[in-house]
């Protein structure tokens, strides 16, 4: 099953409420995915810095990683969120930090990186996961979230969405891909690496590869219709954009709402029911095999 929510703000006055709005939408989708939850928030970024979202094996584990990291790289800013930490690294130190993390903290994983994107995901009820990471306090321009009912791979944090395989890019998915093993092998030959056996990570990697080859997100989604087989609704985020794509027979549910303040996505209308001005919003179901994309 699984549930997806997404919110792309057009009106900057709503940016302080992004986390709170997303948290409510996510909790509403618990019925569709009680196994794990995750979300990506596009908040503030600073020139010359890259944000890494790190996930440790435990709260103590990530605290340990962050304190060692700060000793080794004194200029590093870090904010702790339960088992995760968001670390702002001067971009010139990034390669050294990456190498150091791989060497010194093998149980800490980099789940997302980018100028503005932060990614959080854990096993548990969506409401609890959102509370652990203090989603309701987060500010930003857009966010996407996912509640997972596991089908293709185990109920682990590794199997939780969103998936990111490129800077400021992430993907959530409802459905299942049938050719993900073939696509994964093809992408490995192109030099991509994968952390899990999960089909969604392959879709995220595919889009990253297409964009690395020069396509826009919209064009990458367009060609994915040819290359990815299965049933799916995708919601993707980039540093400045937000996109939606459903498979050719629109197997999985999707509903969207747009006002002059925001564009919102939900697996069901219930997820959108609390949004401001929803009564006057343009509400519609995205067409199958049609790319929808908003960019600021």
């Amino acid at each position: 099953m699984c549930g997806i929510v997404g919110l792309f703000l057009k009106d900057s006055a709503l940016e302080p409420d992004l986390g709170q709005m997303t948290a409510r939408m996510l909790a509403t989708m618990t019925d569709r995915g009680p196994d794990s939850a995750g979300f990506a928030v596009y908040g503030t970024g600073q020139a010359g810095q890259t944000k890494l979202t790190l996930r440790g094996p435990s709260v103590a584990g990530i605290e340990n990683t962050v304190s060692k990291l700060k000793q080794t790289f004194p200029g590093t800013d870090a904010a702790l969120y339960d088992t995760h930490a968001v670390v702002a690294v001067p971009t010139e130190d990034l390669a050294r930090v990456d190498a150091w993390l791989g060497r010194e903290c093998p149980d800490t994983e980099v789940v997302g990186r980018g100028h503005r994107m932060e990614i959080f995901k854990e096993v548990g009820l969506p409401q609890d996961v959102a509370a652990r990471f203090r989603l309701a306090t987060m500010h930003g321009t857009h966010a996407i979230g996912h509640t997972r009912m596991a089908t293709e791979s185990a109920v682990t944090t590794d199997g939780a969405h969103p998936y990111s395989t490129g800077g400021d890019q992430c993907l959530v998915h409802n459905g299942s891909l049938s050719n993900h093993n073939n696509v994964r092998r093809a992408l490995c030959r192109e030099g991509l690496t994968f952390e899990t056996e999960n089909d969604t990570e392959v879709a995220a990697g595919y889009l990253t590869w297409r964009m690395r080859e020069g396509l826009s997100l919209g064009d990458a989604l367009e060609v994915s219709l040819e290359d990815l087989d299965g049933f799916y609704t995708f919601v993707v985020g980039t540093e400045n954009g937000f996109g939606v794509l459903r498979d050719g027979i629109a197997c999985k549910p999707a509903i969207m709402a747009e006002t002059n303040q925001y564009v919102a996505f939900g697996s069901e209308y219930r997820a959108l029911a609390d949004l401001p001005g929803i009564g006057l919003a343009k509400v519609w179901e995205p067409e199958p095999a049609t790319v929808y994309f908003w960019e600021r």
Partner: protein
Amino acid sequence: MPDIDLGVTPLRELNGALHKLPPETNERHWVIENPAGRHAIAAGLNAPLNVEINGPVGYYCAGMNKLATVNIHGSAGVGVAENMMSGFVHVSGDASQAAGATGHGGLLRIDGNASSRCGISMKGIDIVVQGSVGHMSAFMAQAGNLVVFGDAGDALGDSIYEAHLFVRGSVKSLGADCIKKDMSDEHKAALHDVLTRAGFNGEVDPSEFQRYGSARTLYNFNVDHAGEY
């Protein structure tokens, strides 16, 4: 006249109260506020009630309906009036996928658009859509009428049995074994009857519609295909 706020009253309590009403009840007019997209609102009714729902509903609203009139003042999620037996369900907004699916009887009227698979496996229900319907509508439709004022998406009437499809606008493509048919006076009269029951009293001209139905080539195994197995 009970006025139920679903922001306060649990949905199960409402549906339980509606299910307990005997067919001869005098408590016939119910108003439901604040549906907020909840699922299965007023599903399984079995009495001649008049239920007004003020706002958008989620999945399976008025599913399995018998005898009741359900007016949804808003849009409806997946499977509105699915498996309806009799009665009248009216959606003032849009309907999501599989509206009126497997319905045996009664009439479903949708003032906006219906999404994909509208009337899938319909078995006698009449469905009138003022807007357009999505792909795979009337898939395996067995009996009843699907009337579309706007356009139909891809693969209309795929593997259709004996349902009647009337479309005023364009049809993107016809599904397997679905063909365009002549619109005789008899069919215009039948369509006029459906439109009248849907509340369109002479406002819509049946002769503007095209009729589609089964070519009946899938009813029996074609021996020429024996070699393909």
